[in-house]
């Protein structure tokens, strides 16, 4: 295999991506940065009926919705009188490869098979790799997974080593790389060489695959409790989870259900740093993806990202690494459910939020993930200790990503931090200015942005003006 120079390949990225995804994204563009998102989701996605059929054929979805009665009772006991919402859990670990990512992969791989691609490639260090490998096995398609696994000394993140093992066990070729965003460059090289389908996380079919998750939550809750949930908590990283779930809830008429994102707070750690790489205990569901993808979704591998979290996010909370590890132990020992830590990010946030909600309200935690060697609290904390990270018990607000993990001593200490969405919206507009290199936008572009981040056009105009003022002051 010839390795071409980085810039030559990157210059061909649009052409490579077009062949590998099979979508002409330009069809949906309307003016400048504006595009018709709903048209893209309808035309390039699959209908919910088609998705249900696709997922049934590969045993994806229809996962249990479990009321966490012991955790709920405990939460009520430590809450003010009349507070302590009921907590339900959608056990997505029951999917074939152990996470909700099977929903995304099922549609992507079906699409690849339908269009005669000989194989699928995904660039992911997360559960999505195993999901794609599992679905590819069902369709007898070749599968290649690219992961960012090691630091420059060859030390692998235990969570990612486990995911590599899982993909290989499912018959995929797994290429494990050292840290660096040039994984995308090598991904392009592989796509060009193999002619495989890019099973991207961010295509319309991938995102529409998650809509069934939202629909199942709404439908089953209506059946069992004769109402829709008050809140659905979604772990937020790249934005697909939240986007798909919210769209599914709306399609099931759960219009009043608030969709709240939750991420592990890894502030201060640079995602492309060789030094920081092995100083974190969570490789997914964290702010290293959550914030960049919220404020600039089109940073994805595809030109127009179908995952657009600010379009749907009602609120966004951050939890600490220590709080999520504590929650994982709680789930195992109070509810008899051993599940992976990253998949408990939103459960952790739910426990904190439930204490402020009324006791007759309902929160649904939208996912769980499987647990195994490398992806369980003892494995991840042992790794942290081996890398000089301090691990102790106490006030979780003393958590310092990269230096110290503090496991709460009491459930009352779990205190999710609310993110100011107005600041994220301002960053979004700032990113639009940066990426286009201009501060003047048309009426259509302003309308698009307002829709994309759920605010009024006047707010967009005000944000643009303050950026202009800032530039004039320089």
């Amino acid at each position: 295999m010839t390795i071409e120079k980085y810039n030559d390949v990157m210059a061909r990225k649009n052409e490579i991506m077009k062949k590998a995804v099979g979508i002409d994204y330009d069809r949906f563009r309307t003016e400048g940065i504006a595009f018709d998102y709903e048209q893209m989701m309808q035309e390039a996605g699959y209908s919910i009926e088609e998705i249900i059929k696709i997922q049934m054929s590969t045993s994806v979805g229809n996962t249990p919705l479990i009321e966490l009665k012991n955790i709920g009772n405990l939460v009520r006991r430590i809450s003010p009188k009349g507070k302590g919402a009921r907590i339900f859990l959608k056990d997505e670990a029951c999917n074939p490869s152990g996470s909700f990512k099977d929903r995304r992969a099922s549609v992507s791989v079906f699409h690849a098979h339908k269009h005669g691609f000989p194989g699928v490639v995904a660039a992911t260090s997360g559960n999505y790799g195993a999901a794609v490998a599992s679905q590819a096995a069902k369709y007898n398609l070749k599968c290649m997974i690219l992961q960012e696994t090691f630091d420059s000394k060859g030390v692998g993140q235990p969570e990612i080593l486990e995911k590599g093992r899982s993909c290989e066990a499912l018959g995929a070729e797994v290429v494990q790389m050292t840290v660096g965003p040039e994984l995308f460059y090598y991904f392009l090289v592989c796509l060009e060489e193999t002619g495989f389908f890019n099973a991207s996380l961010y295509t319309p079919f991938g995102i529409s695959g998650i809509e069934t998750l939202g629909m199942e939550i709404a439908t089953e809750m209506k059946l069992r409790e004769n109402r829709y949930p008050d809140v659905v908590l979604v772990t937020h990283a790249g934005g697909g989870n939240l986007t798909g779930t919210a769209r599914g809830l709306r399609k099931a008429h759960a219009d009043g259900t608030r969709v709240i994102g939750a991420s592990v707070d890894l502030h201060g750690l640079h995602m492309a740093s060789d030094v920081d790489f092995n100083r974190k205990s969570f490789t997914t569901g964290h702010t290293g993806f959550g914030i960049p993808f919220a404020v600039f979704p089109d940073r994805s591998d595809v030109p127009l990202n179908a995952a657009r979290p600010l379009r749907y996010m009602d609120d966004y909370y951050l939890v600490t690494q220590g709080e999520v590890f504590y929650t994982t132990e709680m789930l195992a020992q109070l509810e008899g459910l051993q599940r992976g830590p990253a998949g408990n990010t939103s459960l952790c946030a739910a426990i904190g939020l439930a204490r402020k909600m009324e006791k007759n309200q309902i929160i649904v935690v939208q996912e769980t993930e499987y647990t195994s060697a490398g992806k369980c609290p003892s494995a991840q904390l042992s790794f942290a200790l081996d890398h000089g990270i301090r691990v102790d018990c106490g006030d979780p607000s003393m958590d310092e990503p990269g230096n110290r993990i503090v496991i709460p001593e009491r459930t009352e200490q779990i205190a999710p931090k609310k993110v100011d969405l107005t600041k994220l919206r301002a960053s979004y507009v700032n990113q639009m200015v940066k990426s286009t290199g201009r501060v003047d936008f048309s009426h259509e572009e302003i309308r698009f942005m307002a829709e994309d981040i759920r605010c009024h056009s006047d707010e967009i105009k005000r944000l643009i003006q303050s950026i202009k003022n800032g530039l004039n002051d320089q």
Partner: protein
Amino acid sequence: MKKNAKQGDWVKIHFRILEPHDRPDHIPEETRKTPLDAYVNGFMSVEEAQLGDRVSIRTLIDREYKGTLVEVFPAHTHSFGKAIPALLEIGPKLRAKIREGADDHRKVQ
């Protein structure tokens, strides 16, 4: 650790994707000073080799790679880790709290 491999053995190879000077400017300096390396497992195509030799392999999806032989019958090194004191008491304490709550409830009745 096994140092020799023969044709058909399951092995791990290393290959370099980018030298440090080929890496783009926008990545952190500490990352830029290091090469971009990759590792992949497959069945060895050459008859015989030792660790450190340049070999070719065929992967699980029958694609060919060339690289340096770094491990023969590569083992999984991730585990469930050690016992972590900070985690061990969480479950027992919470269960005691629930039992205490259930007892209080019974007393009230």
